[in-house]
């Protein structure tokens, strides 16, 4: 008899590491920023998690970010880690990081040489397949935000949904 994947060896402590809980309890990046160049919303229609992301750019660099996430510990922590990591990053590097984290969540190792900061504490999420979307919400949102940079393209009302893409 085939039982569905039972992550027997995986402990809850692997999912909710202290770093994750810390980001959940005091999320970073919630302070208002003084100029918004790109604004984008994200949602996870399966569980109702929602976030609002505002980015201040200077040329190709993310100068500052403000992000508010209403959701579970995993999505809030992942969003908070993003807010900690991306300021000061070039747009292309932020996209690389986002793609690298997506790979990680899909069970592949993070690309060599990528500085993933606190994101390594979310590694355990990959063993809880139904929670992977929670971890990816903020990252999918920033990918869409940066690809359709609002300085060229009005994103008012644009929404990233974890259900849009099957990657």
């Amino acid at each position, binding site marked *: 008899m085939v039982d569905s994947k039972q992550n027997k060896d995986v402990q809850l402590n692997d999912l909710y590491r202290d770093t994750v809980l810390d980001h959940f309890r005091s999320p970073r990046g919630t302070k208002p920023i003084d100029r918004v160049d790109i604004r984008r919303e994200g949602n996870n229609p399966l569980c109702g998690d929602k976030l609002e992301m505002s980015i201040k750019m200077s040329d190709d660099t993310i100068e500052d970010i403000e992000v508010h996430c209403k*959701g579970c510990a995993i999505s809030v922590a992942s969003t908070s880690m993003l807010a900690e990591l991306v300021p000061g990053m070039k747009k292309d590097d932020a996209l690389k990081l986002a793609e690298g984290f997506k790979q990680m969540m899909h069970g592949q190792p993070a690309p060599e040489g990528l500085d993933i900061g606190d994101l390594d504490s979310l590694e355990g999420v990959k063993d809880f397949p139904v929670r992977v979307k929670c971890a990816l919400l903020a990252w999918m949102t920033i990918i869409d935000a940066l690809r359709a940079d609002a300085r060229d393209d009005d994103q008012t009302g644009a929404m990233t949904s974890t259900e849009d893409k099957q990657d």
Partner: protein
Amino acid sequence: MATVSTKLRDPIVPDKREALDVQRIRDDFPVLKRTINDKPLVYLDSAATTQKPKQVIDAIADNYRHNYANVHRGVYTLSAEATDLYEGTRSAVATLIGAPSTKEIIFTRNTTESINLVAYSWGLSNLKSGDEILLTEMEHHSNLVPWYMIAKRTGAIVRHMPLRADYTLDLTAGLDMINPQTKIVSVSHTSNVLGVINPIAEIAERARKHGAIVVVDAAQGVPHSKVDVSQMDIDFLAFSAHKMLGPSGVGVLYGREELLEAMEPFMGGGDMISSVTLDGATWNELPWKFEAGTPNIADVIGFRAAIEYLEKLGMDNVRKHEIELTEYALERMKEVKDFTIFGPQDAESRAGVISFVQEGVHPHDLATILDREGIAIRAGHHCAQPLMEILGQTATARASFYVHNDRHDVDALMAGLSCAGRFFGR
């Protein structure tokens, strides 16, 4: 972290007051013997779908083994047998809900399809611009979206009866919203989030005065209590077999014969016609006019075993059992700090579906933590986003009970909740 005890369940000492012999019932459900993450399964998501007793599983397998053929089509014995069994379920459904005639029982895929059938077949030909469709603020998406779609096509307006602070329907305000423009009043019998049971008879009486038709979403009603259409002056009633021990893929629409008679078919194809020529077609009689194509034969046949199972227990006992268990759960939930229940506190007036949030633990995280203990609850918006908005939540956790649940399951849930509280409070 502390874990919930995994020791085998001691039988609860039989008590004459218990409405159901849960110990015996549990033996009928093969899935309850399995473990999840090495813990015995505690299934608390019957509002989403119910587990199946072996009687239902066997009935489906028996049909495939012995009596399976297409229905209404063959002259041969096997087809006649399959047809008799298929139509036998229709009679059982009619008896269960007190429908005067089997012509009024239409098999669909689920509640959602049943409501869409009414929306399209009745709505499209009877609604015009400015007409009103009256729903409530507590509806499931399946009793919202079809009406939004029909409103868009016809110019009709959708309105919602409001809720009171205690989460029940504000009947005074709601009844006042019924007026001569109101053509359809469509309400849930029981809310899948709040557990609120709505006063259908009073709503129907007012709707009737103004000539509106009444549609009842009884997806959470028929499985849990005696629902008798002859006792309520309503026009349509929708429910799903999968929420009442039956197979998935079978829904029911009860409709009043005169209305069904006058309606255009929902879908066209085989079985629903009386004759087809190169110029057109005439429709089959009720109820087959609304059952286009080969139906879900074996599952409809299996559904009868579910109805028989429930009837043997007695719908009144099912209801009593759920009240007992809900009362116990509500009482125990009072022990939990920073805990909000969205729904009435009085078990007698509500159904055995309890939505809640625990401060500091997101429902999604709670569901993951409980899953580690083998406990299955639902976390999310429960397909009722407008209601979530009113509750001011993006998600809630929800535990729901059925005939195989007992106080052990509630105790396991409570242990899981305190475990989650400790985990996030650490």
